[in-house]
């Protein structure tokens, strides 16, 4: 009984802000202005396919870059002395103390035609380069904003890999490459999966980064959905339908990724 009372606020919270909105999205997706059931919204979705593909592509690129950057970093961090670990963690968390929008704005000033980076190149007579309003700028923004979400789960899981397990692998004849391939990679799989999830999902749905760094050329699916709700293109029925589609795509992707994690990874510390 007590358990039920204690969980009541959470159930209420979930109902109010997750379940009801979700139901509303589904209802809106299958209705029109006259409150009639219709699949009309879904037939109009063709125009969104290119931005959807672009969203998936950029999210994928960002996730891969985040992984490549974060994996060695997390490993080195997890094997460092404790005070070094704390300092590195501090450096990772520091940008998070600033607003997400501010951080992205700062990239605008860096990447602009006469921004800091172009001015620096100008000193050597190079450029100016077109950096803002490109796909690259959007990827940079995503990587910059989401990198900590890749590092944290990887670092946590690597911290749990006992040093003696790595030594045992070396002892049995593994060189550094084999230690990584046969021990560290499989043991850090849960971290890899949550890291990918935590970067890929927000990247696919992002709209501020692409709007600020990508310009009109690089509208992503998130921007288009947002436009259906705010602005002169107002069409919540279409917006809901696209949101629903995006949700389904993400669910499928996560399902595929989680297939790699079917084995229990308990007993990390024996």
């Amino acid at each position, binding site marked *: 009984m007590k358990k039920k009372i204690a969980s009541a606020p959470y159930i209420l919270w979930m109902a109010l802000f997750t379940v009801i909105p979700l139901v509303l999205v589904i209802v809106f997706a299958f209705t029109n202005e006259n409150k009639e059931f219709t699949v009309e919204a879904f037939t109009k979705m063709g125009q969104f396919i290119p931005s959807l593909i672009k969203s998936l592509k950029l999210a994928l690129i960002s996730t891969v870059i985040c992984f490549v950057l974060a994996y060695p970093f997390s490993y080195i961090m997890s094997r460092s002395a404790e005070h070094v670990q704390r300092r590195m963690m501090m450096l990772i968390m520091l940008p998070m103390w600033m607003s997400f929008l501010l951080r992205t704005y700062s990239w605008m000033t860096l990447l602009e035609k006469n921004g800091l980076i172009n001015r620096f190149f100008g000193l050597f007579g190079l450029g100016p380069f077109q950096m803002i309003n490109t796909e690259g700028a959007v990827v940079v923004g995503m990587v910059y904003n989401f990198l900590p979400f890749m590092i944290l789960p990887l670092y946590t899981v690597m911290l749990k890999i*006992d040093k*003696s*397990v790595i*030594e*045992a*692998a*070396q*002892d*049995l*004849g*593994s*060189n550094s490459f*084999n230690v990584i391939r*046969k*021990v560290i990679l*499989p*043991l850090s799989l849960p971290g890899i999966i949550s890291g990918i999830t935590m970067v890929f999902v927000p990247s696919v749905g992002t709209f501020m980064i692409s709007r600020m760094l990508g310009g009109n050329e690089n509208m992503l699916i998130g921007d288009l959905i947002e436009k259906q709700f705010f602005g002169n293109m107002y069409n919540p029925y279409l917006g809901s339908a696209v949101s629903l589609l995006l949700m389904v795509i993400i669910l499928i992707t996560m399902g595929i990724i989680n297939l790699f994690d079917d*084995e229990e*990874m*308990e*007993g*990390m*510390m*024996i």
Partner: protein
Amino acid sequence: MSDKIIIDLKNIVVSYDGERVLDRINLSIRDKEFVTLLGPSGCGKTTTLRIIGGFVSADEGEIYFDGKKINDLPAHKRKVNTVFQRYALFPHLNVFDNVAFGLKLQKLPKNEIQQAVRKMLEIVNLKGFERRKVNQLSGGQQQRVAIARALVNRPKVLLLDEPLGALDLKLRKEMQLELMNIQKQLGITFIYVTHDQEEALTMSDTVVVMKDGEIQQIGSPQDIYNEPTNAFVADFIGENNIFDGVMLEDYKVQIHGHVFDCVDKGFMKNQPVDVVIRPEDIRIVKPEESPLVGVVESVIFKGVHYESTVKCEGFSWLIHSTQCAPVGSKIGIAFGPEDIHIMNKLVPFSTNRVEGVVTEENTVEFLGVTMVRPNLGLSVDTPVMLTIDPKDIEIVSEDISDLTVYLESMVWKGAYNEMVIWTHDRQMILHSQNDEQVATDIGIKFHTENILIEPLSQGKEA
């Protein structure tokens, strides 16, 4: 066991953060030998093992394997395998894959791997466990997997780092026997690290006793037990009566003020020594038959013998005898000259002598400690020699201590623990009732009122 030397450590020095963990270790290990490194925690035994395994590199000295220098050979290229303290099994692999790990890296054919793994699992009594997950195994079973995983590679040398530490007593005894059998059966050199003296004596061909990064004694279990080289080894290897004594002349030793005949010679006249008398060598006699008369404090029946504690002139004597006297009764303690083992003290002095200087009137500074002595009567800047009795150094918590010192060793001397400490690159001794962890820092406080102060210069005391 053959006479061929398989591993040779020469003058190995290892330091961590400026502290010497191993100090000039010299050790030769023969092929097919069962060698045990024995010592308290912090003595450097595990570091020695890790030097051989290739996980620690020596700052100085050479390590030879089969005649070849292997200082720079990385761990994965060495023909040694290790059984780690906490097994270090691969949690993502099942029993079979754990054991097959090394063989797969050698790219052996599949059926060969299968055969070798099966056979090894049979040797360690884990037949039929191939598909089990390692985290579903008990401690003893995990231990067997760890042993099989190392042995399946047919190493020339197997390193075992306190492999039985986590097991309960009965399982320990079983595994000790099994390990000895496996070692004989496969003819592999075992280097075994433990802090359990009984385990060391039971299992080994050779025991290496270590203390504070130095080897104290190398010998067969019988040698180590019967002829310990110093009080530390005697204390560590078993329950013993160890007392301070003075060697009056050849064949004459004074213990607690009584003079006894002994069989040792070659010491200086009146040299302070450590005297060891084994509890099983002591006889209980009538009070009038021995100069040493004590009162029985406790008697414990141990099966084969009684263990009696007898208080004699302030010192506790431990006696293992088939006889016993009731608690509270007066008895005589008797032993023959050949039962007295005389050893050099761990440090060549029995009291501490420290230089100091008079810094202001009636104030002396030594080892960074300032003490006030009324009516000292020495002028400022006079160098002085302080004599500090071991009894006048007290162990206190570090925040109220005069000095923080490193505790090198601790030996029970019947009425007090004799501790050897290091401070300012100088060894000192103290007597304390406390038990402290060796190889750690402790705080000490001087009873300054008892310190004897003498001027060092020729000038006479005013």
